[in-house]
């Protein structure tokens, strides 16, 4: 009986201790925020503003050089997003900014429908960033911009001339303006954060970091490569129109690597996440070309190797990330009932 009571008291005591401030985990959290999260969203805003400017310039005076700048600045925003997108907590979660900036995976062809509805609107009113911000999330961010710029990947839509091309350019310009505003709100939200580090903030960050591996594996890899060669779905790939699916996976993993370097500055012997993440990064970097083509061809095993390496990192992250931040993460989103 005494042992039973002692065990009960231990459970309660450990629970209480976990809720108290911890200088070590506060330090780790603050470093992740100041060295990864804040610079990440700052770069995103800079890139999104540059992309907005590129649209304005091109719509005003279309040229081949201007179109190249439009493409290049789109890739720059997408790069910066790939480096920051896993940080869903905080300002990205408010006003559903994450979903509005990046409506993906797309369902029911919602982006195409939203673009068509905007283009075919009867009122003829000018497109503005403010107006786009009140529309469906499918119209508000990168997937809509990618579709306007790259079409179906081979047949590039016209964005100049009179009539439809001009109107499409105005629409792209307004969407880019809205995206820049969303990026700015996310950036300033992080910059203006209070100095208080709550256990909730740490738990949310830990959840984001663990979930990031699950999203990469399930949505960005498994949904594309399928169970067999016959199940490969090239158009399930992220940003397949602009041909940057693998680049996004590499950038996602590289951010996770930077976070690991802070989480495990002093590497305890039993911690395996940094090595597991590095393995996944190395495999991802070694893949040249398109993940779907790879998975459908003779080197399918490389795609499987990538999936398994991210899976292994996810398993380690689920154990090691919450421990490093001194928090617990929820499981309802992973295995609810």
């Amino acid at each position, binding site marked *: 009986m005494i042992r039973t009571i002692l*065990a009960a008291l231990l*459970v309660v005591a450990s629970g209480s201790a976990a809720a108290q401030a911890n200088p070590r985990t506060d330090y780790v959290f603050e470093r992740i925020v100041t060295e990864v999260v804040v610079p990440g969203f700052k770069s995103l805003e800079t890139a999104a503003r540059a992309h907005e400017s590129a649209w304005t310039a091109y719509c005003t005076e279309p040229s081949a050089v201007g179109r190249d700048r439009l493409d290049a600045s789109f890739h720059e925003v997408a790069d910066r997003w790939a480096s920051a997108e896993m940080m869903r907590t905080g300002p990205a979660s408010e006003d559903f900014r994450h979903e509005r900036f990046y409506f993906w*995976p797309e*369902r*029911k062809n919602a982006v195409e429908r939203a673009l068509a509805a905007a283009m075919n609107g009867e009122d003829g009113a000018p497109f503005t960033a403010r107006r786009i911000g009140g529309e469906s999330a499918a119209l508000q961010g990168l997937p809509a911009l990618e579709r306007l710029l790259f079409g179906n990947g081979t047949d590039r839509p016209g964005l100049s001339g009179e009539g439809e091309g001009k109107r499409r350019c105005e629409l792209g310009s307004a969407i880019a303006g809205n995206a820049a505003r969303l990026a700015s709100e996310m950036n300033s939200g992080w910059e203006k954060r209070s100095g208080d580090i709550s256990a909730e903030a740490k738990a*949310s960050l830990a959840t984001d970091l663990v979930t990031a591996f699950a999203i990469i594996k399930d949505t960005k890899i498994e*949904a594309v490569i399928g169970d067999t060669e016959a199940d490969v779905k090239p158009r399930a790939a992220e940003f397949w129109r602009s041909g940057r699916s693998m680049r996004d996976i590499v950038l996602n993993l590289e951010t996770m690597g930077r976070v690991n370097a802070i989480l495990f500055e002093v590497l305890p012997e039993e911690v395996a996440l940094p090595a597991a993440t590095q393995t996944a990064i190395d495999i991802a970097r070694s893949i040249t070309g398109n993940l779907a083509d790879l998975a459908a061809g003779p080197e399918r095993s490389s795609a499987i190797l990538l999936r398994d390496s991210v899976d292994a990192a996810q398993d380690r992250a689920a154990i090691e990330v919450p421990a490093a931040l001194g928090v617990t*993460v929820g499981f*309802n989103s992973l295995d609810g009932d």
Partner: protein
Amino acid sequence: MVIDRRQLLAGLLAGLCSGQGARAEALKQRLFISCRMDAAGAASVACFDAAGAEVFATSLPARGHDVTLRPFSAEAAVFARRPGNWFVVVSTADGRVVSVVHAPEGRHLYGHGVFSPDGNLLHVTENDIATGYGLIGIYDATSAYRRIGEFSSGGIGPHDIALLPDGQTLVVANGGLRTHPGTGRETLNPGDMKPNLALIDLRHHDLLATQELGASLRQLSIRHLAVRRDGLVAFGCQYEGSADDAPPLLGTLSASQGIALLEIDEDVMFRLKNYVGSVAFDDGGNHLLATSPRGGVGLVWDMAWGAVSRCVAVPDICGAAPLAPEEFLVTSGNAGVRRLPTDPARPLSAPAAIRWIWDNHLAVLTPD
């Protein structure tokens, strides 16, 4: 998790940290009960107030799922998460363990149950493991929760179960998912689902009616229920089909209208990520809350207006219970316990009790 009797008893620590002072204070206000885990993975069931202040907690041998209250008694049944094989009855006065009950050989639990109006019989959703057919196990609360019988749930994979206000009719959410303890929680029939809502006569166990959602929604698993005082049943679903689809996830069942699916704006539907974890009516029944832990959102539906009145982001939100008219209490796996007003102009309360990983469901322990 299948647990033998010795392990089960060893895993139960009754009434730990029960504070009688806190209890006396808490009696003045509404209390709640929910399963949870700590950072080390230890499972318990806890009673607390709307501010997250704990009244008692009782260790569980493994993760629990829902809790149901026994009428005219200070007892609550705490069910193992599927495919568990046990439930525990605790005292709602201090968390003391009253009974520990095992499912019989060949049966496992789905995590929900409901008492008869007099509190004498407990009805538990179960699986006939050999055939996969859904069952309702009957346990006699007046005789140490001895299992005295069973009857068909009217479908495969019964999950939530509730009693209608007439006191005579059970409503069962047959989710349509066939599972086997040997393969854990894996769905064995993803392409052959037939979910339904079954209405069953409590006394004679006759199947009064089954309501299906239609051929195009066969992969929409009906999982959770909330019953309003006037008998309107709200249900929440989880979609087993393609992630590209965005089927309706919420509906109501009434005697006059049958099944009606709530028409929710597509943008809002996308946020639910094809998954509703809990549903609850507020006091008065003017608002329905649906939580989606996958989407990390709580969605409030205004019953009178027939429209979404609030959609709020809360990570890992799942547990939902009425706190007052126009206010809910919600729990999350990583963002604690929070008050969620239905009015979008009123902010959520700051998270309390966040050191716990709150599990899927939240029940009102004292009706005031």
